[in-house]
């Protein structure tokens, strides 16, 4: 008896929800001109082309960063050849993190060293620093 009552309510609920959802018109928006189409109509539509271009540009970004960090072209080539497309994408998207001592420690060490050198120079030239 209870079971039949529950099924009836479920049936009413389902009917109502179908009616309500179908009565509301679908959210309609004209099609956005995608950036790619806006930039160069008809170009780079195929997924394959996009993957190739993406890899090429991301490799360029990584190569430059490695070059900035002092690696030789040979070393850069070797490192890049070991990376998969997904790894290249992951590194390129986190390129800001790819720094030598990028956490600010380098700057602190440099400032301390400059301070030490200045003190040494003053010491050598016979000057003294007095803090009163």
């Amino acid at each position, binding site marked *: 008896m209870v079971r039949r009552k529950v099924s009836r309510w479920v049936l009413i609920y389902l009917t109502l929800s179908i009616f309500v959802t179908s009565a509301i018109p679908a959210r309609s928006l004209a099609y956005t001109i995608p950036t790619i189409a806006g930039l160069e109509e008809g170009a780079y539509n195929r997924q394959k082309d996009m993957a190739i271009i993406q890899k090429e540009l991301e490799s360029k*970004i990584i190569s430059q960063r490695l070059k900035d960090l002092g690696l030789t072209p040979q070393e850069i080539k070797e490192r890049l050849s070991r990376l998969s497309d997904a790894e290249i994408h992951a590194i390129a998207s986190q390129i800001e993190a790819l720094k030598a001592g990028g956490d600010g420690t380098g700057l602190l060490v440099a400032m301390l060293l400059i301070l030490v050198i200045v003190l*040494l120079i003053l010491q050598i030239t016979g000057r003294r620093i007095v803090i009163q």
Partner: protein
Amino acid sequence: MFPLPKRGVAALSSLLILTGCSLPRIITLKDPLTVEEHLRLGAIYESRRELDLALKEYHRAFRKDPRDPRVMFSMGNVYLAKDQPEKARTYYKRAIDLNPSWPPPYNNLALVLIKEERLKEAEIYAKKALELNPENPAPYLDTLGVVYMKRGEYEKAERYFLKALERAGKEGREEIERHLRESRDAQR
């Protein structure tokens, strides 16, 4: 205070410098990509729905050329995709200011206005886009169709969708057909 022997200090500092006390270097980071390449990479990320990455690329392009309307248009598209119409509107307007004869930002600005139910303004911008590029009118005719459908002018909307279909290439065809169906359903 215990005085440091001058020669000793000089020798020690020279030794430190010469024997492996690696000094921190100042590295100048160069951006290897051109504005076009940043835009292209950003557009690829955008088409894969990696919107934050796309935005980063557009910001890099902006640093290289803050007066490029394509950068503004691309940023507008990312914000539209992120459902932030106010920001999208701002960027489309900047793109229009930078190049008033380029139709895509007019069309996409019309879309933002449709979203905000500002249909009269949307119609003006879509018409302007159509006027600027009569050779490739399909997206603009479709946008106008949507404006009329939203205003309840179904017959007019249908005419525009049919015209858009006549002129549409492969891209966007499905979308126009969907709008046409929606308009016909709403009319019934």
